[in-house]
């Protein structure tokens, strides 16, 4: 709890310090620009459109795999704490759980879904 307060303080201080430094920079040298200066850099030429687009994420199967696989962490942390006390049963149960999940990676890999689609 006290630790949480300290961590929160540090978080807010760091966040604030960086935002303030940026503000100071803007006060020291207020940004100003012309339309050509705002063109995004790609080697000296201008684009036709905005860069923001319906970006085709080529690794979306991997992203979905991550969503599910990431959950393993929720179970693994409490498991790690009691592992030594529980002994063999803990090892076997987690081995089972992880083996089940590893099939997911195996399947994805076999489908070639880690490659750019």
């Amino acid at each position, binding site marked *: 709890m*006290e*630790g*949480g*307060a*300290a*961590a929160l*303080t*540090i*978080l*807010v*201080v*760091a*966040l604030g*310090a*960086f*935002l303030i*430094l*940026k503000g100071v*920079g*803007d006060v*020291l*040298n207020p*940004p*100003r620009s012309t339309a050509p*200066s*705002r*063109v*995004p*850099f*790609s*080697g000296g030429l201008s*684009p036709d459109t*905005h*860069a*923001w687009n319906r*970006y085709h994420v080529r*690794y979306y199967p*991997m*992203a979905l795999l*991550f969503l599910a696989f*990431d959950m*393993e*962490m929720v179970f*693994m*942390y409490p498991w*790690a*704490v*009691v*592992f*030594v*006390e529980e002994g063999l049963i803990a*090892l076997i149960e*987690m081995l089972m759980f*992880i083996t089940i999940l*590893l099939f997911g*990676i195996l399947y*994805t*890999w076999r489908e070639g879904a*880690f*490659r750019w689609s």
Partner: protein
Amino acid sequence: MVGEALSTAGLALAVVAVMIGGTYVAAVLDVLFTRLTMRVAVRPLAAAALPLRRAAQLALQRRTLTERPDAGTWALAPAVLAALAAVSLAVVPLTGTLIPVEADTGIVVFAAAMALVVVAVYLQGWSPNSPLSLVAAYRFVAEGLSYEIPFAVVLIGTALPARSLALVPIVTSQEHLWNVIRQPLGLPVYLITVLALSFWGPLALPEGQDVAGGTSLELSGVPRLLWRVAQLNVLVAVSAMGAAVFLGGWLGPWLPGGVWMALKTLFLLALLVASRQFFARVRTESFVVVAWTVLTPLALVDVFLAGIQAMVAAR
């Protein structure tokens, strides 16, 4: 009440001091390694001053804008990155007694803060509305989703012998044998994943030359400086954590604990900083495949080996 607040402030100051000092050292180390690789004369004093001079130069620049950027998230990105680095550094015990944030779930806090790094880098690349920067942002998402699991899993491995997620027990559990020896797969996997996490060296995918700097492509002046500093902050935080969980933290003979911790952190920091002189940047796709099919299984093997080892040791 007041005393408590004062001690909290003191600990927060310690974190800030370590962060600033570490960042400066990392910047100087980078200059030194770069010049050594170039095989040009290295003047230590000039190298020590160079990061400050560069920073001053950037501070004097007028920041540039892009066409309709997302100004809010653009300003927030470096601040978020630095704040995450600060929080993750704060959970690392600096000595047996100087523990800025004593959390029962220290490594979970660390992993959570580092998981949010993806958010900061993605926002940095997304916000300026610039094509190459956007490509870089999405690259880092691919990278982030790949390194996160092995990164968190090898940290869990260090919690097994300690029977706790808090960092002080994890360090003291290494009294007889450091985790780097006990769990030989741990530190290598950790170092690879934190390189990806701090987008540095061979895994600086979102800042590659092929995207002309990517996430920092449109940055000039103070925002660029802050982004560089925040990136080094992350390097410092992960080095300190690596020293604590794999190299026995403050443990060591003859010297005071703080010195040991500083030396070990420096060692890992130097390794990480130097990596960019030796390894070419890898392809995003290759990294994704390897992270899932090699690093993740290796990390899981590491955890189970650590578990068996801890179980045998407890008998």
